[in-house]
């Protein structure tokens, strides 16, 4: 059913694949996500939609291998099938409900960190298709981990930065942002930041300083993705919101990032053990230091 094609490694630990999912593709919009389950025993994990082809009926998923499921995903080859994919989930980006004439008057900045480049791409592409210009800061730890540079360059004014200075601007995305605003005199009305939680937190702190309205995309722990489990709840100001139905995009200046980061660590130990077990196969005997059998 959900056939995989174009499965590829982009850089170390970051992979992409196209998945045949006509029901998802028929109505998906930039900003939305899917839930994927690799096999019968697999878990349900949310993944952002990087691109979609309405004629072919395929969605492009980009993901980083962090746990068992993403590791299993990375082993799929062209022609293999996903057990389950469902969506599109979450609310589309507010941009697509904003009149194009208004968008054209706005200075829009995207900040993409690491694998966050994937969900930024469909938004920037959508703007380009509607004749709206935007700036994108694309950041990664080092040159070898940079993804989607070419694709983003086609749809935006791209500023590349690496934490170690191995390519492009030398520094974190926040340093690039400060440089654009303070040294290059850029003015922005809206910033959309997507990436690791810590990056979004500091981007939001930086934009707050400049009074730039900021939207972030949250990717917390989820099970069903339809509002049923409440695992993805987070504080936005004083309110508790469910990222799956109320989000995933929220006001970056109202999100309680510290709480969200702690919640995202909840299953870390369990996940680590499960991944070790999968990778070590028959040679696995605990690996957690608890079984006393570590050779």
């Amino acid at each position, binding site marked *: 059913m959900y056939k995989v094609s174009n499965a590829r490694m982009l850089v170390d630990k970051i992979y992409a694949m196209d998945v045949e999912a006509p029901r998802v593709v028929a*109505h998906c919009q930039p900003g939305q996500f899917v839930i994927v389950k690799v096999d019968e025993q697999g878990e349900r994990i949310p993944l952002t939609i990087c691109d979609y082809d309405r004629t072919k009926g395929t969605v492009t998923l980009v993901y980083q291998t962090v746990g068992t499921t993403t590791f299993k995903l990375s082993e799929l080859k062209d022609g293999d099938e996903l057990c*389950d994919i469902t969506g599109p989930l979450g609310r589309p980006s507010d941009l697509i409900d904003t009149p194009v004439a208004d968008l054209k008057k706005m200075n829009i900045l995207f900040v993409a960190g690491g694998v966050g480049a994937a969900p930024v791409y469909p938004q920037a592409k959508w703007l380009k298709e509607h004749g709206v210009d935007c700036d994108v800061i694309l950041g990664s730890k080092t040159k070898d981990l940079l993804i989607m540079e070419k694709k983003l360059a086609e749809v935006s004014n791209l500023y590349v930065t690496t934490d170690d200075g191995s390519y492009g601007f030398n520094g974190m995305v926040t340093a690039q942002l400060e440089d654009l605003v303070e040294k290059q005199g850029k003015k922005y009305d809206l910033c959309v930041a997507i990436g690791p939680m810590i990056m979004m937190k500091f981007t939001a702190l930086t934009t707050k300083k400049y009074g730039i309205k900021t939207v972030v995309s949250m990717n917390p722990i989820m099970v069903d993705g339809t509002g049923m489990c*409440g695992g993805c709840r987070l504080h936005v100001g004083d309110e508790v919101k469910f990222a799956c139905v109320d989000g995933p995009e929220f006001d970056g200046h109202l999100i309680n990032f510290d709480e969200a980061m702690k919640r995202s660590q*909840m299953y870390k130990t369990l996940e680590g053990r499960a991944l070790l077990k999968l990778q070590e196969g028959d040679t696995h005997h605990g690996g957690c230091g608890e079984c006393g059998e570590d050779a």
Partner: protein
Amino acid sequence: MDNMKKVPVREQDPKVRATNFEEVCYGYNKEEAMAEAERCLHCKNAKCMGGCPVSINIPDFIQAVKEGDFEKAYHIIGEDSSLPAICGRVCPQETQCEQLCIKGIKGEAVSIGKLERFVADWALEHDIKPATAKAKKGKKVAVIGSGPSGLTCAGDLAKMGYDVTVFEALHKYGGVLVYGIPEFRLPKDKVVAKEVKKVEELGVKFEKNVIVGKSLTVDQLMYDEGFDAVFIGSGAGLPMFMGIPGESANGCFSANEYLTRNNLMKAFREDYDTPIIAGQKVAVVGGGNVAMDAARTALRLGAEVHIVYRRSETELPARAEEVEHAKQEGIDFQLLTNPVEILTNDEDHVVGIRCIRMELGEPDDSGRRRPVPVEGSEFDIEVDTVIMALGTTPNPLIPSTTEGLEMNRKKCIVADDFTGLTSKAGVFAGGDAVTGAATVILAMGAGKSAAKGIDEYLSNK
């Protein structure tokens, strides 16, 4: 044997079952079922039938059991219920059919539920096919949700000859029967999957991973995909929290999440990937069936479990049998107790729950005496996990994307009691999406009424 007492049903020993997910109740065997059937008086004016939301012909099916004709008994039940193996397990018979049984006036009521379960299990074991439609109607109906209301509605419509497709949001069919009710009360492969297959054998088509309101809308089902009518049986919705400090801490879950991880995702099994934080010491807040299910699941995962409920034992909304089972298994009940704060450590993980004792005051809107806090009675229970089983609020996905669908004050879909018709032409609804969280059998009753309503609507169209 004492004719005034039920033939006892065999159950797994509480100490043993507290450590496994095997079914608690073994059910009757042939001899036991026939002996229990003998107790039925076969009343002419059978009061029990009035207590059944789907009006199963109880005296006749029990008569067939008495005669040892289990296939006939199955078909008699099948006229009114598509899911007998499920109802025989999870219906609150003690407040429905069995409560009205004449036998129950002087002694114990006939064990109607256990007999239904016996007949249904026998039919599943012998793969008895349900009776299918004789003629096709040539009209298409979409059923949203494969829970009890959707399955019932779909089954009934298929029997009438409609071309029915069920759309399910999750990756498995059964709705709450799969994600909510645990294995030890309702086996998934042995019972739910087989009952779903029976509905499939009636000619119903199933499509998984379709979230109506997201993957497509109700209007698109009708105008783009050509369905003549739509039944919404999308279920209860979003879990409620108390709004007390500490609820965002790690180790605090909704019962929905805890149960979904364990039941749908099978986190209790080594060979499945989904993790669950089982907890060593668990507090479950709430007193309904979902609270009992969460508590007994945590117990089986190895925890010491406390149920915290703000009213007294008589007000516990859970089925008597579930409360009894929970107690037998060693779950501690902290009644007339309400949480005021979840205590956390520096890493924001749950380390306890601060509660206050309650006493019952004047009756409230629900007619039950309102619990009021006893000043100065706060105390702490040391726990590492808190599970909130407080009920749900309706899911907004369908209402927010369907124009012309009227909601009530509680944001449930407004539907006619007898036909399930909503404010939108051709759209019917039933189950928890209409009533808010209720029981499996009430949802089935609503699915059944809606099937009749849809038939009437399409016949006149």
